């Protein structure tokens, strides 16, 4: 046992039975006479249990304590409590011995809790603000993406249309190229095409281009004069010849002959609604392309036209593969020889090829040919 005050040392010695006879009788007479002295003895006993529990006694003191005090269940319980209590109070923060220390501590704790509350509110505000801003950013991005998507859709549509147009032109140019390569008496470029037996048309001669051009200019002049006198078919536009200006195909360098043919090709537009279609065909014109208006959108990929006289004499019959474009309501026939045409009335039967291979009627046209 270390550094105890004298009075406490005496009390502890008494409790352990280490006091002298005189000392013991003095202490005993004191606590029997004085309640405060007795209370000091009770406190000293508590402290002795605590000192044992905390291992603050010497070896001899511990031995005596165990012999004298740990001889009953009651003292056992007291020691168990002393051990637990010593462990508990040792882990507790000591009281501030200053007056109002506890109150100050409580206020400090409340202040800390307040600061924590403010910090939490600030954190929630920051998070909510960030979420709102992020949502705005995402909304703007979605809006921009939608705009870009719409623009891209338009561009795609335009490209698709351009591709279809190009495909159509390519098909036409291919047909013309094949036509150029075909024999003069077989102007039909399409496979399986039926050629009129009477056809004796001559292929255009490349070497006499200037002569043909001169003839054409001459005939244009005559046709204009005639169309002034003949007002029929004005609505069809067939009183004025429109020269088909062919564009150079993609592989135009390998199809030079096509350009040579162009001046000799004439496009006539036919309308089913007008039975008074008049086509003026100059005598020098060997080939024409008929443009057919449709009442409905073209849906067949392969067509056939059959031209007959009113007494059912077959003039020509050609078929071709059409590169359809969306909402297409007009068909251009392959080049047709004008050799078999004489002045007179004709019928044109347009048929489309079904998926089962049969041809069905699409439309029928009536027209008059004036050969001049």
């Amino acid at each position, binding site marked *: 046992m270390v550094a105890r005050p004298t009075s406490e040392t005496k009390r502890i010695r008494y409790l352990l039975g280490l006091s002298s006879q005189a000392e013991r009788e003095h202490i005993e007479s004191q606590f029997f006479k004085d309640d405060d002295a007795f209370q000091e003895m009770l*406190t000293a006993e508590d402290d002795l249990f605590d000192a044992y529990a905390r291992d*603050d006694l010497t070896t001899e003191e511990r031995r005596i304590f165990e012999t004298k005090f740990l*001889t009953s269940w009651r003292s056992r319980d007291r020691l168990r409590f002393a051990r637990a209590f010593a462990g508990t109070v040792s882990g507790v923060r000591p009281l501030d011995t200053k007056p109002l220390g506890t109150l100050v501590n409580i206020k400090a704790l409340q202040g800390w809790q307040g600061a924590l509350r403010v910090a939490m509110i600030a954190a929630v505000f920051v998070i909510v603000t960030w979420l709102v801003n992020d949502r705005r950013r995402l909304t703007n991005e979605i809006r921009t993406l939608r705009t870009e998507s719409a623009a891209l859709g338009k561009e795609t549509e335009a490209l698709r249309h351009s591709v279809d147009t190009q495909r159509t032109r390519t098909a036409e140019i291919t047909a013309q190229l094949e036509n150029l390569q075909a024999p003069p008496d077989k102007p039909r470029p399409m496979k399986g095409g039926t050629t009129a037996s009477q056809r004796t048309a001559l292929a255009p001669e490349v070497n006499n281009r200037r002569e043909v051009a001169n003839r054409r200019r001459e005939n244009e002049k005559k046709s204009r004069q005639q169309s002034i006198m003949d007002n029929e078919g004005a609505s069809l536009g067939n009183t004025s010849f429109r020269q088909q200006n062919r564009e150079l195909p993609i592989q135009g360098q390998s199809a030079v002959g096509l350009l040579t043919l162009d001046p000799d090709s004439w496009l006539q537009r036919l309308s089913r609604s007008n039975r008074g279609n008049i086509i003026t065909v100059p005598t020098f014109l060997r080939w024409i392309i008929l443009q057919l208006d449709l009442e409905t959108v073209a849906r067949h990929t392969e067509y056939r036209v059959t031209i007959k006289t009113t007494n059912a004499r077959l003039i020509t019959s050609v078929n071709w593969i059409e590169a359809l474009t969306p909402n297409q309501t007009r068909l251009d026939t392959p080049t047709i020889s004008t050799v078999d045409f004489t002045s007179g009335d004709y019928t044109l039967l347009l048929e489309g090829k079904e998926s089962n291979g049969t041809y069905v009627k699409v439309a029928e046209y009536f027209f008059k040919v004036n050969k001049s």
Partner: protein
Amino acid sequence: MSLPKATNKSEWVLTQEAFDRFLAELDLDRDKAGEKYEYIRLKLLKYFQWCGSHAPDIDADETINRVTRRIDEGQNVSNLHGYIYGVAKLVHAETLKRRNRSQVLDEASFINLSAKEVDSDTAPYHECLESCLENLNQEDREVITEYYKYRKTEKINCRKRLAARLGISLNTLRVKMHRQRQSLEACVEKCFTRYERTD
């Protein structure tokens, strides 16, 4: 307040009248006399415990009986506390004489408990202690914790500061802390006993 047990050896039978005369010697106020009786009995119990008695409560009751008998027989006792202490020393001496004479102490009847057998490191016991501490109001909890926290010299100084802060004497603080400790210990034992029964 109950009458002390009469011993066969004395051939004197404790009566209510004799006990009332004893209380009247302590204080004319019956309630205060009762409190003083309890405190005297506690002093006797502790005296016999600290003297190494094997039966402190029996020795304490024998002491009170003898004092009461003397008062009942008309003996004039001027210094009651000194007289009681004198009788107690006589009873203790007689007890020691009997113990030495018999030499037949039944060792098995003594509870030999080493400190190692006392295990307070059980979680339920600590939970009971924490719970009982929580039952105290905050100030009492802080004061008792402070009072029993320190060791050696620091302990004395702390208790003096604590008494000064609370504005009470050191002895009053001792009484208060001792009683509070007893209450706390009783609370923990009760809690732990209830736990052991349900376990």
